[in-house]
């Protein structure tokens, strides 16, 4: 039995639901979106991830119709959206502030969009009840927004934006106002609802963990450009740049000069230290500037010199961050570089072998890290 993998972006025959074609958006002198081209496919859960001011919210607002591109085109289901106002788009948005109408009950908030379509009463009532069930809000139908909790308000906002069964649902930092525990629960709820309704979701977030959890593909943005688009696993394991590697999770970066040796590439990074060996599919010229990136959990730490490790370096423990389940050791190399190594705390804390100022060995295989050009 072959498991079906959801990856329409790899299928050249698939027609994208959303197409950005050389879209640029300027606000005065400021360029919010810089010549951006991107496809988003039906039923995708697409995350726009980046620091504030990177243009992710502008991209979403252009999809909703609140902003128009300065140049370039946006197509939704093959239709050019340039002249189509927000109220005529089969796109709904869940606002960061939720934007629930304070003078209307939960029921009326959800029914708001349906009433604008001029549907008959019974159809509206049935749809609202369905949405209330989906978001588990039936008990609160008669309450006003200020009479329910933050998490419930978030679900009302979701129910309201889903009520019209949009082709595309936009979520602007949907979980920003919730506390961590509730946020994690809601992330799974969102994925569940997305799967049940089969709607295409585009989510804007600055929380990389959230993007990794919910999204089918993540677009990492910076200064109005998309730096990399890939599945969460690819983004994490195979970032295409130091920026992406650094933005997603924790990473050690060692910069040096490339020295291709057979099918491997060595990074010359310090005179007194051995070169770091890595594997890559990219061609590097000898002497080219290169950045070796490795995640802390892929770096092993030991008191004894490891035997058959492709890369091993000696250093001294500078700091230990104890997080309960894992510990991160900050190891200072003789060159002054600090490398983070992470281990799972399989033993009790009192039996930990390594402590501050200890001389240690760090080691990793030649496939553990990635080699980046920029």
């Amino acid at each position, binding site marked *: 039995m072959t498991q079906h993998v959801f990856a329409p972006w790899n299928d050249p025959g698939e027609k994208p639901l959303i197409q950005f074609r050389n879209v640029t958006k300027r606000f005065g002198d400021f360029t919010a979106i810089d010549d951006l081209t991107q496809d988003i496919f039906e039923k995708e859960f697409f995350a726009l991830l980046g620091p504030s001011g990177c243009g992710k919210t502008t991209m979403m607002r252009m999809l909703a119709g609140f902003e128009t591109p300065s140049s370039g085109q946006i197509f939704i289901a093959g239709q050019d959206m340039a002249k189509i106002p927000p109220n005529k788009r089969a796109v709904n948005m869940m606002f960061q502030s939720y934007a629930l109408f304070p003078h209307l009950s939960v029921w009326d908030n959800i029914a708001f*969009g349906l009433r604008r379509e001029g549907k008959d009463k019974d159809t509206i009532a049935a749809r609202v009840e369905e949405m209330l069930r989906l978001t588990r809000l039936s008990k609160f139908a008669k309450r006003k927004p200020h009479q329910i909790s933050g998490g419930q308000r978030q679900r009302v906002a979701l129910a309201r934006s889903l009520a019209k069964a949009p082709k595309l649902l936009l979520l602007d930092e949907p979980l920003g106002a919730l506390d961590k525990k509730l946020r994690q629960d809601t992330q799974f709820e969102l994925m569940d609802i997305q799967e049940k309704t089969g709607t295409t979701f585009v989510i804007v977030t600055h929380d990389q963990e959230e993007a990794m959890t919910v999204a089918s593909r993540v677009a990492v943005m910076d200064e109005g450009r998309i730096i990399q688009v890939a599945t969460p696993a690819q983004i994490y394991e195979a970032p295409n740049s130091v920026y992406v590697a650094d933005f997603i999770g924790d990473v050690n970066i060692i910069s040096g000069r490339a020295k291709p040796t057979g099918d491997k590439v060595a990074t010359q990074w310090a005179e007194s230290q051995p070169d770091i060996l890595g594997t890559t599919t990219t061609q590097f010229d000898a002497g080219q500037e290169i950045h070796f990136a490795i995640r802390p959990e892929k770096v092993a730490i030991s008191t004894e010199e490891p035997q058959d490790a492709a890369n091993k370096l000696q250093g001294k423990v500078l700091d230990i961050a104890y997080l309960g389940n894992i510990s991160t050791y900050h190891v200072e190399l003789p060159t002054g570089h600090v490398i983070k190594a992470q281990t799972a705390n399989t033993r009790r804390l009192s039996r930990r072998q390594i402590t501050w100022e200890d001389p240690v060995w760090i080691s990793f295989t030649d496939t553990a890290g990635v080699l980046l050009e920029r």
Partner: protein
Amino acid sequence: MRRFVLIAVPYLWLVALFLIPFVIVLKISLSDVALARPPYFPQLDLSAGWEGLTSFFAELDFENFWFLTTDDLYWKAYLSSLQIAFASTVMTLLVGYPIAYAMARAAPEWRPTLLMLVILPFWTSFLIRVYAWMGILSNEGLLNQLLLWLGAINEPLTILNTNTAVYIGIVYTYLPFMILPIYSALERMDDSLLEAAEDLGCSRLSAFWLVTVPLSKNGIIAGCFLVFIPTIGEFVIPSLLGGSGTLMIGKVLWEEFFSNRDWPVASAVAVILLLILVIPIILFQRNEQKQREAEG
């Protein structure tokens, strides 16, 4: 003890400046007119003791209130006051709402200036401002001169000393009372609500009716009462800008008091006016309270 004192201060204030004067007016309204000083009878003679007190109360009657019903001038004046107050409240709302809306939508750095401009006229005497309107609206006034110069009219319009002038005066004077509560309601409104309404299929206009207007409802109600209540008893504007045809209870009251020197009837007119005003004042208070609860 401290709490008692804190509560006592406003109560003493109300008793001294509202309740006692009201009791005096009520007492005069139950008295008879007399050619004396003060021009009414009876007077309470505390030196006569208990007998003086009983004879004092025996002299009081509702004759003046009865008199008010016999002459149709009074109820016509009340009715016309209510009518003028209602019409000018509607007009003030129609003028004030767009101004408040524009202020709330203006760039944040402009708002304090705009707010200042609304409040600025209060820094000049109210009487002077009404006199200024006489200068503008009279036959040889600025408005007529402008219209003649523009060629819009051939002979001056008679505006001063008509109800039109009274409406202009009232709308002008009470406009800030309408603008400020509506502005404060609109300013607090989250702009994303309008985007949400549009996103859910509203046109700009229907978003205004379905979201902006309901959310500024409390401001509208407060503004309307703040205009309506004082306008009913308005005296200065109708007497300076209005003509002989302008019938308002404030003017009638003034004439009874100063021209006819019939203090008892004037007091009766004032007591009835107060009773009429109690209804909208209670409604206003209730609206304010409901708003506080909703925000609570």
